[in-house]
């Protein structure tokens, strides 16, 4: 790590976070690391973050270590890109909906 001030981009941070989690699971051995990491990302990451890490894995596969890449691959199975969910938003009653306007 250099001594320069570091400001991470969101992408860098997500990669950093995933790698950091993986390093903390590393003592479990690679298989269990992949499982644990995938579970962790599923449980604690917001959908957009998940989408982002999946996109990173797709676009920049070299930026992820093998266990992280494997875990993200597992995460990617069965995920559809998330976005605004108007139906859910509109589930709030009319007054709220009007207010938002």
């Amino acid at each position, binding site marked *: 790590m250099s001594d320069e001030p570091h400001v991470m981009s969101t992408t860098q941070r997500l990669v950093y976070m995933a790698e950091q989690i993986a390093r903390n699971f590393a003592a479990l051995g690679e298989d269990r690391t992949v499982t644990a990491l995938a579970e962790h990302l599923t449980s604690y990451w917001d959908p957009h973050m998940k989408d982002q890490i999946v996109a990173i894995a797709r676009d920049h596969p070299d930026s992820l270590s093998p266990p992280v890449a494997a875990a993200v691959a597992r995460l990617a199975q069965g995920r559809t890109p*998330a976005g605004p969910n108007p139906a859910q938003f509109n589930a709030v009653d009319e007054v709220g909906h009007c207010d938002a306007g």
Partner: protein
Amino acid sequence: MTFSRETDHGTPPAIATGKSVTLTIDGQSATMPEGTSIMRAASLTGCSIPKLCATDNMESFGSCRLCLVEVEGRAGYPASCTTPVADGMVVRTQTDRLKQLRRGVMELYISDHPLDCLTCAANGDCELQDQAGAVGLRDVRYGYDGATNMGQAKDQSNPYFDFDPSKCIVCSRCVRACEEVQGTFALTIENKGFESKVSPSQGEDFLGSECVSCGACVQACPTASLIEKKVVEIGTPDRAVITTCAYCGVGCTFRAEMRGEELVRMVPWKEGKANRGHSCVKGRFAWGYAQHQDRILNPMIRASVSEPWREVSWEEAIAHTASEFRRIQAKYGTRSIGGITSSRCTNEETFLVQKLVRQGFGNNNVDTCARVCHSPTGYGLSKTFGTSAGTQDFDSVMKADVILVIGANPTDGHPVFASRMKKRLRQGAKLIVIDPRRTDLVQSPHVMAEHHLPLRPGTNVAMLTALAHVIVTEKLYDEAFIRERCDWDEFQDWADFVSEPARSPEAIEPLAGVKAEEVRAAARLYATGGNGAIYYGLGVTEHSQGSSTVMAIANLAMATGNVGREGVGVNPLRGQNNVQGACDMGSFPHEFSGYRHVSDDATRGLFEQAWGVTLDGEPGLRIPNMLDAATDGRFKGIFIQGEDILQSDPNTHHVAAGLAAMECVVVQDLFLNETANYAHIFLPGSTFLEKDGTFTNAERRIQMVRKVMAPLNGYADWEIVQLVANAMGLGWSYDHPAQIMDEIAALTPTFAGVHYDRLEAEGSLQWPANEAAPDGTPTMHIGGFVRGKGKFVVTDYVPTDEKTGPRFPLLLTTGRILSHYNVGAQTRRTSNTAWHPEDRLEIHPSDAENRGLKDGDWVTLRSRAGETTLRALITERVAPGVVYTTFHHPETQANVITTDFSDWATNCPEYKVTAVQVSASNGPSEWQQDYASQARNSRRVVPLAAAE
């Protein structure tokens, strides 16, 4: 409730032996536990024996000689406070002879006491006055021409209370309170005989003495010798309301003593189960912020942060808030806004904020300040034990034999609990302290740690694993416990892991900087010294391996069988008054109240049914991720209740950039805090004195907060959240927080039995309180772990990426000080600044010398994240290579320095490890200057009248 003094039985309850004795007191038969004093027995029987030196939160002393009684068959007149009851004893407490003796003693007292009762501040609330009446003293035949101790100068140095030695009766209650209750030993009696005088430290004034201003002496004083300045100013109270302190996670119960609508004083309540009648300088005295002129009482809005604030009506402010959030969501999507709940607000308020986010915002973007303190506790204890909370009640410490304190400084951070811990240590329990700093617990009057392991910041996991290495390799573990309570295979995996030579104390000695032999000795003591209790704080959690450290602690406790009974356990010392509650209430983006994951369909279904909406099954954003998303343009609005993330969260530049990128920042707070500099809407908050609700302390104890005065801002915080919710169309209709608690109980299995009527009746409840545990749960995991089998988790030491190097050779760690609380928003607005007017950088003499620094010099503190300036305090409390500061003052901007490295599992910031350089300086940094000017600019307010 009307004003009446708390009943004082004179002496504490006897130490339980299970035996009881029957005696006769004034003709009445009474059966009492063996060891009870005659005085207490009489009081419990309804006979009131005069007394002055006795009070039931201290050991009997026997000095005032007013409580003499007659015991059949015994010569003389034994003091009832020091004489235990005996079977068949016949006691008379009211005879002519006793009256004569008591009058004789009282006559002596009054011969050396001013006769200015009518103008005395304690008139009507003075035990000496009461007792003089009770013994029927009518005349002082000694006259008043003799020697006296009157006419001595008053000591008014303490900002909160006065000491008038002229009114002192030398009962030593203050001295004993300082010793027995507080454990500071700041007071003594100077000289002897007639010249005996209460003396703070070496006969100096209170402020300059060792006194920590806990108020125990003032509470103990039976005259006006030690009296609160507020009583002098306002008069004696005429009513009292029981409520819970809003400072740290100890959760002290207080009597808020009022005169009319004015708060006269806060007196710790003896029945309070968390504090047992004790207090600290914050809860006892530092409540003046509630009336501080800086409080914002009108809502304000502005279009941009460069504009001055415009005061508006509540209606306008609420409508604007709702419309902004809806506008942003319509434009940027459902997940573009979120909220932050406050650990300082009540359970009910916190519950409402997360409900607002989940039900109203339609996402899970809710987080809480626990993110930056105890989120690793939640994660770690949940994984290992199955519950995101400490295992014990505070009383448990009195049964501990070995106390292991890791990364906590309770005498500053949790002073009331520290006093109990110190009491236990004085009774002979052994202490191990793992901390880079030489905290007061390591050595202070009458306390001496058996082992202090001054490890290098960032090596907690290595250290705890080394302790485990000793316990496993020396076979000090509790095999029966592990086989019965834990998963044996997991234990074996863990045991194999910790047994590797690389994890031995010898192997980590160069890394942690602690002598291996000391580590081994500490491990042996913890494993074999009887009941072992672990207490930890933010020095555990605020690391890149915070969660691992918590799990490593849990591993140690399980391996040694120190879980599931009194006197043992794993106990996080929670930072804020309601950080436990805020977490319990579903403030985290991945879970509902009661720690149930949002992806769990059954739980979600329960809430969906109750709230009439479909809920998001995906976790939301954590605070740092919200800020990232904001910087990326995907997160545009936030509702922040009672938290100052700009000052308290790490890497201020990152926080500021995130906030600046948002379109609507709503801050609800008492004051225009630092975060409000980036806000568009300000909703004035209410203090804990102005609302009803509950707080949950570090021992999972749910306690009542009661409104003692009307909110100056017009609404309690829960009402404000409800207004916002309803403006967003949620149709809430809570009339009282009790209804919110009913909803919490209905939706949260661990809270199923928690209702206001029970809290009123029982004072408090410790969750889980439900059908399985109708009276609550003081000690958890009795008989079995909540998750089933206790889980050993392998915790590998992964060094932080924040590393020292040539440019940043020192490690900065941060903490707090007794007189201040967190970012200081409250305490800085009280006279507590008398003790700590500024943050100082503690630096070891050798590091200071290398840099040519003298004590008090201004220094620049620089990290990779930023720089700030503050003054140096040269001390051997910190080891060479380590510097330390507090973060109570916004001027210091300590978090400009801290980086955004964080815990791998929870993103709890790594506040405790920052590589820094320190150099001489002549003034504030550029950032500090820019910031000060921007803050000034941002705090301009156009008042309501002018705005109209």
